[in-house]
């Protein structure tokens, strides 16, 4: 057996008690380890009676112990806010992105402006301008006819 195994065996024997035969076998196994043999002889004498309660008397819970636990676990507004803010922020951002995306995908939006519409507006503006110029010309034509340049000068 190894040293560790012998130490385990000795602990078991000290805890559970042992017979003379068991001790005899152990002593044989301890022969190769004189220091362990010495340790066994020392411990097998037993420890003095140890009154741990005298050394470490148990103390009851302080009177306000439970109340102080409850108080420290009470949520506060600030602590709640700090705790939940990241979640609320993420949820709000997600909703904003979702609604914006849905709105932009909608084809029924009256305010949607297409390239065709822009083109139409541009050409329409030019046509209107040309029409206005023609109307003006028609209006001024008689005047212009009477104001023909003097070719003799």
């Amino acid at each position: 057996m190894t040293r560790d195994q012998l130490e385990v065996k000795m602990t078991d024997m000290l805890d559970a008690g042992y017979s003379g035969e068991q001790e005899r076998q152990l002593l044989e196994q301890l022969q190769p380890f004189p220091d362990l043999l010495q340790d066994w002889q020392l411990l097998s004498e037993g420890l003095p009676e140890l009154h741990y309660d005298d050394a470490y008397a148990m103390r009851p819970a302080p009177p306000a112990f439970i109340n102080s636990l409850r108080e420290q676990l009470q949520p506060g507004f600030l602590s709640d806010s700090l705790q939940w803010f990241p979640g609320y922020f993420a949820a709000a951002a997600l909703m904003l992105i979702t609604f914006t995306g849905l709105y932009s995908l909608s084809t029924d939006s009256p305010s949607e402006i297409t390239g065709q519409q822009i083109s139409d507006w541009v050409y329409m503006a030019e046509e209107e301008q040309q029409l206005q110029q023609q109307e003006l010309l028609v209006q001024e034509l008689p005047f212009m006819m009477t104001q023909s340049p003097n070719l003799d000068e």
Partner: protein
Amino acid sequence: MNTGLTTEEQLYARLELLYPRIERSIRVYISGSGMDSEDLTQETFLKAVKNIDQFNESSSLYTWLFRIARNTCIDAMRKLRTRRRYSAEHEQLENHADPLQNDVVFDQIESGRMLRAILSGMPEEYRELIMMKDMEGMKYHEIAEITRVQEGTIKSRLFRARLMLKKRLTQAGYEHDA
């Protein structure tokens, strides 16, 4: 038997019952370090209540609490920067026996003080095993679960811990006449 208590009240009642054992274990664990056991005990119970949903009802509440206490002590000791060696100096600051008391009480107090001084001077892992096995009566499989060390290793270390304790008690002339 219907005690009329809600589940939460029952929990707090159980915690209050376990307080003395846990506080004492913490006191032994940090023995000689100068730290306040009451603060660490409060911290332990606060952690326990905050994480009570992780407690498995089929296991022992005491063992679960003890594990939290142990981890709390380990963290606290690790943070202790100014003290490099644990000494029994703080044991001297505790109450000394009043020599006017009767001899039996005097012996008890002095023996207790001597035992505290010896335990606080032992290596932490030895003191911890003495405390868990010999003081608290924990079973080896419970100690193995808490410390995450195999039972064989625990028994081997306990053998050496008891040996050290025996030698130091003998050197100190420890006697306790009940």
